[in-house]
């Protein structure tokens, strides 16, 4: 098999272009996600100060109540997609780019093995290692080795490693951060040393991709930029003429301009009209989440010894006068209501709820921002309440209303609310918690009641719950996206990753 036969067919060149596009979108949107909790750990407790690296210049004060919200570090749109603290859209962009990247990668791999092109990447002899060492010596002497078939051994090993090891590692560690996957298969994140270790490895993988791009570009120059462009743009396997070189440069510049144009459109569109962008991306991403991850049922059972000693709160106690009055009386007068599309509306005091069979679970709380902690919860299974209330056939969702008036959030916003579907509510680890680590639920964590849905991200686990109403559709409530964070911060109504 000689170089002329292999060459760079059109599909190699096109997948290379789309790889540049999707990888750059993944990196920028990944930086947006990192900014929501700009610290990386090797421990799942995320104890403040135990991070091995941080990308923020803020330090939380000692002796004051601070929350995970205060730890965010918004990044510039120059590096983050879309930037300026738009975690919801950053996540949508990350998953959209991921879908494109995986499709591109699968097409590439299928076509690679369906053609003789697999010889481009897959080593077929152990001689590859001494040959790669020889090539490295050539580079060190500033004399790049001659092109191989079509790569030299060092290039072949590097590309093989990036495509068949680094890329799958990134996907695998990304998946380990999904609470749905970790809840159902608790052994899976442990393969990487835990959720936070997976997050750290995911970040280092991104860094490795960036390093590879720098290295790859440097080597293209080392081998001769005009020949490199002629191969990758025009598919030539011979020395290009001056006119061909000029054409290759022009097409490469146009391709890079196209990538830049997509980034500018994505960033501008997300910042100027986030709702429209949310609607567009949601149509692509939510069905995928719903099919691939949402059905996974949590079976978490952490041992008591793994409970995080300093759990992070996220959110400040409501200023709602009714809640404050109830709180001053230790919620003795609190009455929780189950209303809406049910045969039997319910009203239960906190003692009434405590008299129902308690369900306890020690689980990992995974915040959408990126941090995690292990906490023990005790409360009433939602299924037990639903059994008593008997939903009508048209009931599809549970609408949770809260005392949380979001006083700390600027602008018009209304009270915090959220919705979940009936199927999720009926799962074994879906509970209304009134205990945390064996004590009454503390105020910063949502007293008197909070939701626990162990296959979802933390924002779905509504705090300071006032009541629940069974409804047929959430689109007529608020902005119609299924919750306060969904309406205001452009999150998704489901959160399995």
């Amino acid at each position, binding site marked *: 098999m000689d170089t002329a036969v292999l060459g760079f067919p059109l599909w190699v060149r096109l997948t290379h272009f789309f790889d540049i596009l999707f990888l750059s979108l993944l990196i920028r949107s990944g930086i947006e996600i990192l900014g929501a909790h*700009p610290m990386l750990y090797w421990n799942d407790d995320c*104890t*403040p*100060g135990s991070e*091995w*690296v*941080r*990308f*923020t*210049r*803020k*330090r*939380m*004060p*000692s*002796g*004051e*109540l*601070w*929350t995970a919200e*205060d*730890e965010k*570090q918004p990044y510039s749109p120059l590096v983050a997609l879309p930037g300026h603290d738009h975690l919801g859209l950053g996540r949508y962009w990350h998953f959209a780019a991921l879908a494109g990247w995986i499709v591109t990668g699968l097409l590439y791999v299928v076509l690679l093995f369906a053609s003789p092109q697999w010889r481009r990447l897959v080593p077929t002899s152990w001689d590859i290692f001494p040959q790669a060492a020889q090539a490295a*010596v050539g*580079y*060190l*002497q*500033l*004399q*790049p080795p001659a092109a191989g078939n079509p790569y030299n051994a060092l290039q072949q090993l590097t590309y093989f490693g990036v495509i068949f090891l680094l890329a799958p590692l990134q996907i695998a560690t990304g998946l380990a951060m999904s609470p749905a996957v970790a809840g159902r298969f608790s052994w899976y994140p442990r393969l990487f040393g835990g959720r936070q270790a997976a997050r750290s490895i995911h970040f280092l993988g991104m860094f490795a991709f960036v*390093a590879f791009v*720098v*290295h790859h*570009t*440097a*080597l293209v*120059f*080392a081998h001769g*930029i005009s020949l490199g462009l002629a191969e990758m743009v025009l598919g030539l396997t011979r020395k290009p003429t001056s006119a061909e070189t000029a054409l290759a440069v022009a097409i490469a510049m146009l391709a890079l301009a196209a990538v830049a144009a997509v980034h500018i459109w994505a960033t501008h569109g997300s910042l100027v009209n986030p709702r429209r962008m949310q609607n567009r991306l949601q149509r692509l991403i939510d069905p995928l989440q719903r099919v691939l991850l949402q059905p996974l049922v949590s079976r978490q059972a952490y041992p*008591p*010894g793994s*409970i*995080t*000693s*300093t*759990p*992070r*709160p996220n959110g400040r106690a409501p200023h709602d006068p009714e809640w404050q009055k109830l709180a001053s009386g230790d919620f003795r007068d609190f009455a929780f209501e189950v209303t809406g599309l049910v045969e039997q509306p319910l009203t239960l005091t906190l003692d009434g709820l405590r008299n129902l069979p308690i369900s306890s679970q020690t689980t990992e709380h995974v915040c959408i921002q990126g941090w995690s902690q292990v906490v*023990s919860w005790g409360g009433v299974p939602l299924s037990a309440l639903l059994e008593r209330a008997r939903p009508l056939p048209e009931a599809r969702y549970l609408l949770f209303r809260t005392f949380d008036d979001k006083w700390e959030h600027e602008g018009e916003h209304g009270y915090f609310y959220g919705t979940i579907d009936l199927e999720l509510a009926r799962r074994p680890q879906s509970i209304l918690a009134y205990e*945390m*680590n*064996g*004590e009454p639920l*503390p105020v*910063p*964590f949502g007293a008197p009641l909070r939701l626990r849905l162990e296959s979802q991200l933390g924002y779905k686990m509504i705090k300071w719950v006032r009541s629940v109403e069974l409804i047929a559709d959430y689109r007529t409530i608020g902005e119609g996206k299924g919750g306060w964070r969904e309406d205001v911060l452009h999150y998704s109504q489901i959160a399995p990753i």
Partner: protein
Amino acid sequence: MAVIVERRDVDTVVVHGSLAGLAAGLVLGVAAVVSSTILVGSAWMPFRFAAAFVVGPHAFDRDFPLAITVLLGSVIHFTLAALFGVLFVGLLALTYQLSARSWLLIIYGSAFAFGIWEVNFLGAVPSLFPFLSGRLDLATQLWTAIVSYVLIYGPALGLYVALVRPGVIGDWHAVGPPAGTYAPPRDPEED
């Protein structure tokens, strides 16, 4: 609310970046001269190499004035060192790493130095100064790439930032848990 532990003034980045670069450049220069003396038998080879960026292959001619070689080589070396130092400290400031852990700064320095070596020697030299390709033997190149850049120059850059801590106005390691949120885990013996 939050305490700011780093500031990112342009003058801090330029002044300390230059100083870090010059300090690391001096260390790298000394290492290059020592290694050249040992490996090639000439202390002047690094100066000739740098001077060749401006005067071309003439810098290697026997009759090319040594004083000019040394002067030109030093000016080019330290100018690039200062520029790369500003780039390094600028990157640290942009990514909020001026207050990073010391061991991490050393690693950053090594990674940055390897990147500089790669871009310079694999990108710029073959493209812009092809007459330099193949001029150094393997032992010298190994020393230059791995020892001089990754193990000496890069760590020196990182060490400067770790010791001087430019722009750092507070310690972030001392953060405690949020007040009023500590809930001791239940003792399993009590269950």
